[in-house]
């Protein structure tokens, strides 16, 4: 009996400890293959808008920050598997993802768009898109949007947006769909990028693209969410956010209206 009560006490103690965990050190999962939000430099370090935001948030919360690089399609399982504590990777807040993870308030919102070789025809209809090859990054909101709206298109799914750009340049794809800012930086601003252009409308239907991108967390880490939400509000208020934004973009990346 004594043993059991001791066990229960121990269990309760550890439970309490987990509940009241003081966040001194936050490990952020980042992708490192989605410029300008997240890219890997020649020396292996990761830089970009997402990374600067993560560092600003940590400075605001006065905690230690570590970045962990993880491929996109394993990034949610890795969070759940405790490889890191939060994901900052331009992840749209969607209903499907909310079943697995919790999100902070949004920290940016950028519409998705199609890009194609200049002069390519485009109509956003099922009939027109039938048999057209479209490249998307696997497990993104773009992937779901194309799969649901143009199921008869030839959908090609890539591990990273960079691979999709390669195949667009190789002529294997008619269109690529990604975040407009990512396309602008990762394709249009690069060598030969002037041969390509945005095509079709800006897409931000909340059914697929959610209400913006947030920081994904494990559902039980409620204290961390509160901390991050107030930190996001704080860097928005004190101008840190705008400084970081202006480093990468010439437009407002927080609002949906652009």
């Amino acid at each position: 009996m004594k043993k059991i009560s001791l066990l229960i006490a121990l269990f309760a103690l550890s439970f309490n400890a987990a509940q009241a965990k003081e966040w001194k050190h936050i490990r952020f999962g980042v992708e490192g293959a989605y410029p300008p939000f997240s890219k890997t430099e020649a020396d292996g370090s990761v830089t970009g808008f997402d990374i600067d935001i993560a560092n600003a948030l940590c400075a605001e919360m006065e905690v230690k920050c570590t970045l962990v690089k993880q491929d996109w399609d394993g990034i949610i399982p890795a969070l759940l598997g405790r490889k890191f504590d939060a994901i900052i990777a331009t992840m749209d807040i969607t209903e499907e993802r909310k079943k697995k993870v919790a999100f902070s308030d949004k920290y940016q919102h950028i519409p998705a768009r199609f890009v194609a070789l200049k002069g390519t025809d485009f109509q956003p209809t099922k009939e027109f898109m039938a048999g057209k090859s479209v490249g998307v990054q696997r497990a993104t909101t773009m992937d779901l949007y194309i799969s649901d709206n143009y199921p008869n298109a030839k959908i090609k799914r890539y591990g990273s947006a960079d691979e999709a750009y390669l195949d667009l340049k190789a002529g294997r794809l008619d269109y690529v769909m990604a975040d407009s800012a990512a396309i602008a930086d990762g394709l249009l601003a690069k060598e030969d990028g002037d041969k390509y252009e945005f095509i079709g409308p800006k897409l931000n239907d909340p059914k697929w693209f959610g209400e913006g991108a947030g920081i994904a967390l494990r559902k039980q880490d409620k204290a961390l969410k509160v901390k991050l939400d107030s930190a996001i509000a704080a860097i928005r208020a004190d101008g840190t956010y705008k400084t970081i934004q202006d480093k990468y973009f010439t437009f407002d990346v927080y609002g949906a209206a652009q």
Partner: protein
Amino acid sequence: MDLSIIVNQYSLYLNGLWTTIWLVALSLLLGLFIAVPAGILRSSNNWFVKGPIWFYMYFFRGTPLLIQLFIIYYGSAQFDALRESWLWEYFQEAWFCALLAFTLNTGAYTAEIVRGVIGTMDKGELEAAKAYGMSAWQTLRRITLPNSLRRALPAYSNEIIFMIHGSAIAGVVTIVDITGAARVVNARYYAPFEAYFAAGLLYMCLTFSVIYLFKKLEASYLQQ
């Protein structure tokens, strides 16, 4: 554990299974057409015959299959001459690049198996063939090849299994094979255990079918 995910997506998995089967089967068949002549000629004494085959076998056995696939798929797109030629019609297709990489890869490995079994032919049988007055061609066709290919069976069944497992990398160039299907399912439901476990089961079924078939094949060959 939510098995309903797999049940709901069974058609995706079945399509993936079919893609894996035809891709691997066709690669193995075409690879065999490369391997048998290459394996025989590898034992030639003429360096102009032996040299290129030696190089081919060492290149494809000396580099990872994934690198070969990247060179053929992403690398080929870099050459304008290729992109403007009629060949591009094939090279732009992911399935063709995967088929080419797998064929050349299995061709090199199988050629090594063929070379090995021919090199270890029983000298007595060859001498007997000579004593019967058979020509070199006749000896090859009637004695060396049937005997060698029979002895190559166990090693070759291994090569088939390696090829089935190696084909899992086809997914990185957008082909939806078994692994590709699992990745699509994982992407949608964020359930890596269920998604990849189902893929593992399918690969296991394929592998055991091959093992079973070869057991039968070996038994019937040994009776002859």
